[in-house]
């Protein structure tokens, strides 16, 4: 059954590692919904969280093919029940007398943070589950959004 799956890759932070991962995924026809990458607490180690569409077999292949890359250290399937996942978003909104009340309510409701206000443009940070960010973006349809960006998922397995 095709479903969205989340895979976490622990990789050596070598030049071209992003290219290796993305080349592999496009070459083998894996559909990527989102991909995030960043450093970890260990020097020289980065972590990818990749959301892909695929059935069990595809997922198995993705893990095995990724594991074949010399710079990939571990691959983990992040399952809903046994992991936490978060997404971040930045949204720039037209902030004026007409919109301020609605924006303030939204910020309160979703526990967002106002990061900057310049020339009547307010930048707000949202974070939470993918579902929560989806809801935020639903509500934003009613508001004068100037610019927006979502990070895609970050994930981590629970327990030791």
């Amino acid at each position: 059954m095709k479903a969205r799956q989340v895979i976490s890759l622990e990789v050596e932070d070598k030049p071209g590692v992003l290219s290796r991962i993305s080349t592999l995924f496009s070459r083998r026809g894996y559909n990527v919904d989102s991909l995030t990458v960043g450093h970890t607490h260990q020097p020289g180690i980065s972590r990818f969280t990749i959301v892909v569409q695929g059935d069990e077999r595809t997922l198995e292949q993705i893990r095995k093919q990724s594991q074949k890359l010399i710079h990939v250290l571990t691959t983990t399937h992040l399952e809903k029940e046994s992991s936490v996942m978060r997404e971040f978003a930045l949204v720039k909104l037209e902030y004026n007398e007409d919109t301020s009340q609605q924006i303030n309510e939204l910020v309160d409701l979703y526990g967002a943070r106002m990061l900057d206000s310049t020339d009547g443009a307010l930048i707000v940070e949202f974070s939470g589950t993918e579902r929560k960010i989806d809801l935020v973006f639903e509500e934003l349809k009613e508001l004068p959004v100037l610019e927006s960006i979502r990070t895609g998922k970050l994930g981590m397995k629970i327990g030791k």
Partner: protein
Amino acid sequence: MSEPANISQAQMTGAQALVKTLEMLEVDTIFGYPGGANLPIYDALRNSKIQHILARHEQGAIHMAEGYARIMGKPGVCLATSGPGVTNLITGLADAYLDSIPLVVITGQIPRALIGTDAFQEVDCINITMPVTKHNELIFEEENVVPSLKAAFYIADSGRKGPVLLDFPKDVLSNKFPHHFDHEVKLRGYNPTVVGNIGQIKKALRLLAKAERPLILFGGGITIAKAEQEFLQFIRTTKIPVVRTLMGTGVIADNDPYYIGLIGTHGNSIANRVVQRDADVVMAIGTRLGNRSVIKSHLFAKNAKVIHIDIDPAEIGKSVTIDIPIVGDIKVTLQTMNERVSKRPLGHEEPWITNNYQERTTMLPTKDAASVMEDIFVELSKIDIPLHVSTDVGRHQMWANHHCTNPKHLPLLTSGGLGTMGFGLPAAIGAWFAGQDTPVVCLSGDGSFMMTLQEFSVAVEHKVPLTVIILNDFRLGMIRELQDAQYGSRHTVHDLHRCTNFPKLAEAMGGMGYSVKRREQIGPVLREALNNPLPTLIDFDMEKLLDSIHLSLNPIAS
């Protein structure tokens, strides 16, 4: 070799360090082509014992390295320059990648300061070659020259073997640096599984013991793992019949009672039938179960439970559903299996099916060039001396796979996964440089030979005992065959015409050419060409030969 005491830390150029590392790794032969960016390496090679074979095109160099690697069972080394040097290597890299041939490919790159500026002969080597290499790396720091090179040999020659490419900017090669040589290879993210899981092995043996019609399907992995003896011991002890893929030549004799045939689109129908329909347990060993072998993955072994042994976990379950996966080195895994079955036999008294050699090999007489090809390969197989035989790609490749049966000529060096026309000639030349004083033969067609024929000149230069056999039907035979089968015999672009005089071409390049037009000449000319110390080429005129065969078969004419 006497070495200075402080050898572990000496000021030398990157190129000198590179050559010194190759010597430490016991590289004896490199196939290559020079250019601006790799000249520092050529300068350093002047004082080395390493033999450099100058190809006439980088594609020739890399196929030679493949032929060498296949015979030696260790990585072939290939050297090319930046830009077009790199792009000319792509076919060979892809070929080696698909057929799991260990290569270390060294390319020169433009100096670091110019990278990314579209400088002269600059291409993005790493990104171009990424999908067709097991691993590749741009060596951006002098200190990485030696450790990366050592790692490249280790990666290429372990686990599932394959090509590794290292790209060296010219200034990294030219700058002096205190290079170290005593690193050990440490790769955190690379630990190939060698020993198969014992629980899985036991499960597999239990399944085989319970089976009524167990079958083994094997591919080129047996030869790559050097596991021929272990394999034969296993099937003889357990009485399990076998079928093979195109890459599995030379493991078991064609007339062996346990051998049922070749599977796949160009295989024997009996072999395809037993694997698709008859067997109740199939154990696949050292094959990636590619689409040309299994034909239709949903029909593959449809009445059987499937065990799959392979060194590459990603091949298991990729295209066919597997009941018992075993990841591990084939030799080690078969040793374990042999130990277990010697203590606890599987209980099969005799194979449930045996080699029907007569039925499988007797072809109906056809008015087709195929019958001539068969004659030529049968005559070649009668020449009972050791030969390394390569093929090109096309009809002759498939017929050679069926009819080249002399074990002294096997395994065939053939391009299985990529199907590279032009592989045969350079691969045969590379096989000669693998030593062992064995003459080499390239089986080719008039189409394939034209793709890399310039390498004949290398054979002449080095007095390689090479015989090129051209099965000349004056056309692209397999294209015609496909157009017959799938495009209502609407023939287009398959005709090569009688434009080229191949024997004269061979002579112009310094070799010897023969032309064969009559059937009774086949054997004698083959023997004469193989005895000729010059590189030779035999042009078999398939049309004339076909006519002569029909004449000789016709009682009135005789």
